[in-house]
């Protein structure tokens, strides 16, 4: 269809104008592209060199070569082991050789567990709250929402100490309730539960739930559905985009978290990957830079994969609301 349009001859005289403007355009376009590509180089240059350096020998890194002579894949294996990123232990039965148990440990595994728990918990807590704020009428709605929002203003450093004390204390309580597995400190609850009720997530979802047409609710009510039913059967399937944004953000947040995990973990049982990498780097400075680079690449890859998959919703979600990590 479009091809037909291209075949129509241009009106007379248009050719000259068009070529002149095209020339001017080209010049300014070239400079625009030049600046934009320079930006790309600055933005991803460090990453490219990180990848390149992760395959080098140590002396090549120290001389800051651009490319390695040969690809040293074993850097990755060494880094995984030395930085305690991932350790899979297979126990087999000595008699039959059958697999008995699989023991996985290491920072990557910790981060995956923490991420899963905190993202699921956050969705479970935030979706109903956002729904209530967006689509239900109850006494004190605006006041409560203002109170929720006001907690976003408080800087993290003010909350650090009371959070720490609360977590220690609640941990004691739950430890005496559930035994050692119920501990909060140096365990998953301290790393995840304080972040379940994210006001930002509630805000994001609420904005989206607002836009769902009122007709759908009327129809659902005529069919005899109440709010919980409507939320699960109609609203949630429509809200894939904001939920995807929240999942991505939650993943990035818990993958990057450093300050809080530094405070509430004392050994490697639950320490997430950012702390692990930071420890690996600081413990052997000046150390083996090529291994550090390999460890960094390993850390970055899951985030980049997720980002490439979800980047459209994600950047739009960010642009609509504006947050900062």
């Amino acid at each position, binding site marked *: 269809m479009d091809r037909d349009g291209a075949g129509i001859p241009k009106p007379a005289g248009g050719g000259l104008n068009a070529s002149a403007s095209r020339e001017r355009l080209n010049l300014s376009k070239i400079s625009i592209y030049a*600046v934009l590509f320079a930006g790309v180089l600055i933005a991803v240059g460090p990453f490219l060199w990180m990848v390149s350096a992760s395959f080098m020998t140590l002396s090549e890194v120290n001389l*800051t070569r651009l490319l390695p002579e040969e690809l040293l894949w074993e850097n990755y294996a060494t880094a995984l082991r030395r930085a305690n990123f991932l350790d899979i232990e297979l126990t087999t039965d000595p008699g039959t050789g059958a697999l008995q148990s699989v023991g996985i440990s290491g920072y990557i595994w910790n981060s995956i567990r923490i991420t899963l728990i905190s993202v699921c918990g956050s969705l479970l807590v935030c979706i109903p*709250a956002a729904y209530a704020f967006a689509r239900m009428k109850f006494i004190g709605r605006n006041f409560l929402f203002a109170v929720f929002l006001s*907690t976003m203003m*408080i800087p993290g450093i003010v*909350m650090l*100490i009371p959070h720490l004390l609360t977590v220690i*204390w609640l941990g004691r309580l739950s430890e005496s309730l559930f035994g050692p597995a119920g501990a909060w400190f140096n365990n998953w609850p301290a790393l995840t539960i304080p972040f379940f009720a994210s006001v930002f997530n509630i805000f994001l979802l609420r904005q989206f739930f607002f836009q769902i047409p009122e007709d759908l609710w009327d129809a659902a009510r005529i069919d005899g559905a109440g709010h919980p039913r409507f939320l699960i059967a109609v609203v949630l399937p429509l809200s894939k985009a904001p939920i995807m944004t929240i999942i991505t953000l939650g993943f990035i947040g818990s993958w990057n978290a450093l300050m809080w995990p530094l405070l509430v973990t004392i050994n490697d049982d639950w320490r997430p990957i950012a702390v692990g990498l930071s420890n690996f780097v600081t413990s052997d400075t000046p150390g083996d830079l090529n291994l550090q680079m390999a460890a960094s690449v390993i850390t970055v890859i899951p985030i980049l994969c997720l*980002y490439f998959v979800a980047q459209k919703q994600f950047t739009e979600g960010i642009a609509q609301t504006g947050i900062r*990590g």
Partner: protein
Amino acid sequence: MLNTRRGRILIENLTAYIFLAPAGCLILLFGLFPVAFAFFVSLHRWRRFPDEYVGLANYEKALGNVGYILFFWLGLLGLAAAAKIGKRLFKRQEQGTAGRPALAMLAGLISGYAALLALDWFFKLIPVIMLIPRQVRGQHTSLALFMEKLGESFSQPDVLAAGNLMLIGLLLAALIALVLLLRFRQEISGPIVINSAVTTVLLIASVFSLRLTISEIEAALASARESGESLPIWSQLVFISAGIALMALAYVIFQRGIKAHENRRFALLALGGLALAVGGYILMAEAPAALAAADDDLLAGFWITIMYATGTVPVQLAIGLLLAYLLFQPIRFRAFFRMVYFIPYITPFVATSIVFRVIFDAGQYAPANRMLTIVGIEPQRWILERSSIGSLLGLPDFLAGPALALIVIMIYSTWTYIGYDAVIFLAGLGNIPGELNEAARIDGASGWRIFRHITLPLLSPTVFFLSLVAIIGTFQAFTQIWILRTGAVGSKVNTASVYIFDQLQNSNRYGYASSMAFVLFALILLMTLFQNRIMGRRVFYG
């Protein structure tokens, strides 16, 4: 009954509260309560476990006499806010919108007071409860033992008395609320209850703060008199308050002056300048003495934070805007560029900082040093360099500026945030109606003039938002500095928040760290207000 209108409303309310319950409890526990708790901690000597009450001593340690002045002003501000809300309350009453304003106000008053009573009870309970883990340490921790200790702490005499008072207050408030709800359903206006409750809380809290400040100052004066020194807190308070008041006055006069008529404008501007000069002089003269006893590391931290903010925020906003503007032109691969620019923002700081450590390494083969060598400058020590940029350039001391290591951190921080700024600018540009640009182009406006007079003004809300977020962000910046600082530079790159974290993690000074965190919080709030007033006026919401 459930099918009546009232029944449906009841069910809707109940469902909503059930939906909100998990998030509400968590936010209460990890969002609201921590602020009060942190304040409580900051009034104590507190190293892992609560110790004695020390009043404002932690603040005095952090800021010297300015600590007292800060609290005095906090009390005054609280009073002013209470007066403002209270005035609005009475105005609304005069308009006669509500049926039973007096009853509603009484409900608000009592519930506000009950909230404070609850806070009081809580803070009597907290120190007792916080000690439980220490008491049961070593023993076999069983639930029974824990519960026993918990019960004991609830029934301590002063806790019990406060608890009873709180219960009476809460019951009374609930009773009145119930009466209002059932009898005068139509007439009740929620804002009156809420506003009067807020007024009550503000009023009592600020009176409490003022009384605390005054008694603390008196105590400090008494102890100074005993040791035979003179402590000019009161005169400092008066002078510094006067200085700040003069500065504020100057601002008001300037605002008037700009709007005023030609011949009055000069007089007003001159007057404003005079007020500014006198206020500034008083502050300059008095502040050093008032800050004499302050924690030098904290003050240095604030100074480093300010340098860090001025070095990063304008640069990252300008580059972000440039990239966004270019991306907004009709070009190809826009999605690709946007995606790539965003990468530094989402990747873990810990990982990318390692590359920056290598780029700005002190060795002669480090990329940054190689570039310097090409240009003909001697290699620098970059992240290991504690000397300031000014002294490296041979400038006089007062132009010293940040340490070179801090500059590296600034470059790194700018690099991480440019993409984020560009994406948000791009969204802002997308909201500007295209007809405006077109109309201007038809009128013969050049690209730059369109940008300056149409794009920029219409983009001002985005600029405002981003600069606010960026400045608050730099005041809270932690990770970038924590991972890029080296032992060689010592405290030369410690911003206020890094210093606070150091005090917390390495020295376990919970009380002191809390008080410093509050000072930082006050500063951020103040800046937000200031920025709102100054920049908010220039923002044009087309």
